[in-house]
């Protein structure tokens, strides 16, 4: 990418971030989508031998960006800020990975089981996390989110399938996502 192109990416992302800090959810969603694309390229290049973890890392980084968005100052460039977070997450991932690889061989059955559980868990975590979170929601929130946001049905189709009214489906999605966001953030976002 030429420097002019890089500059226009920076300008775009930065203005979206400034709008997001003012509370503009649409700008924020656009920012995270654009950033997600950049992150995908960034992590793919650096995890070519470990493509299974690319999506995990993107999600972890987006979550970190979200939880620490108060550390971005509008007087500074956005790209170096996001890059530093992505790099931090990448190093953290590689360190955990090498620790796993360097772990001593298990010498009793307990350890062996734990090891297998661990690697099974790691592989499935990303795919399961969202499902697990969704499962904690009451059905009137969970079903609309699953059908509309994950399966890609229209509001009307979901309404037909669940027997809920269209507006109930819409409200369910909205409330459910809010609830999910709160669960995801936990206490980390006290500010």
């Amino acid at each position: 990418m030429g420097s002019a192109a890089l500059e226009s990416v920076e300008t775009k992302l930065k203005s979206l971030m400034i709008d997001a800090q003012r509370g503009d959810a649409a700008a924020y969603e656009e920012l995270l989508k654009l950033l997600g694309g950049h992150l995908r390229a960034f992590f793919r290049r650096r995890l070519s031998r470990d493509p299974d973890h690319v999506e995990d890392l993107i999600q972890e980084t987006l979550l970190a960006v979200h939880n620490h968005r108060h550390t971005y100052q509008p007087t500074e460039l956005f790209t170096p800020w996001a890059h530093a977070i992505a790099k931090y997450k990448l190093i953290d991932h590689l360190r955990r990975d090498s620790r796993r690889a360097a772990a001593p061989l298990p010498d009793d059955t307990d350890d062996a089981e734990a090891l297998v559980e661990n690697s099974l868990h790691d592989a499935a975590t990303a795919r399961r996390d969202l499902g697990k979170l969704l499962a904690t929601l009451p059905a009137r929130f969970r079903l609309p989110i699953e059908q509309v946001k994950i399966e890609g049905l229209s509001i009307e189709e979901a309404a037909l399938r669940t027997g809920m009214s269209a507006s109930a489906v819409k409200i369910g999605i909205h409330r459910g996502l809010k609830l999910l966001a709160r669960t995801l953030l936990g206490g980390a976002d006290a500010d």
Partner: protein
Amino acid sequence: MQTDVLIHVLASGLEPTPPGVARWRLLLALIGSMPVAITAMMLTLGVQPALTRVLALPMFWVKLALALALIGAAALALSRLGRPGASLGRVPVLIAIPCVLVWALALLVLLRAAPEARDALLLGDTWLVCPWLIAALSLPSFVAAVWALRGLAPTRLRLTGAAAGLFAGAVGASAYAFHCPEFAAPFIGIWYVLGMAVPTLIGAAVGDRLLRWG
């Protein structure tokens, strides 16, 4: 697909981010911890009995200026290091200047002193305890700095730990200056700097563990 869902989750119900919140949190912790170090010094060591006489000595102010300059420089370093991607810029120079000035003064004093007086200028009466007491008095500010940093997002953990240690050491030194009976520049150049270096090194050693987030 799931990443898109996550993004939608994160964006829905977005609240505005209050401007400057990162800086305020840090400032509050740093300023708030200083009276704690001074109170700890007063309760355990006690202020110089001859304080009014001490306050008239230029070297008391040199000592305090060294500590205060390093408090400022280290706080600036922390405000940068707590934000991902922010560069340190000239902050290392700001940290070096007060140290170099005190060392130059110390060298001057040593060169002009009679050879038999040099031991006393270097060691004073309290060289054995001075660095350790400064390091001990740095504890409250170290805890406060780590607390503040845990609400930010440092990505260079060892460096950030060292800066937190330097900040705390400088606060410890400024509090200790009101107790300390030594006023020779060589003494200050060695033992005060060493006293501040101890928490700095400890901070660098534990930064990785204390400051990891996410």
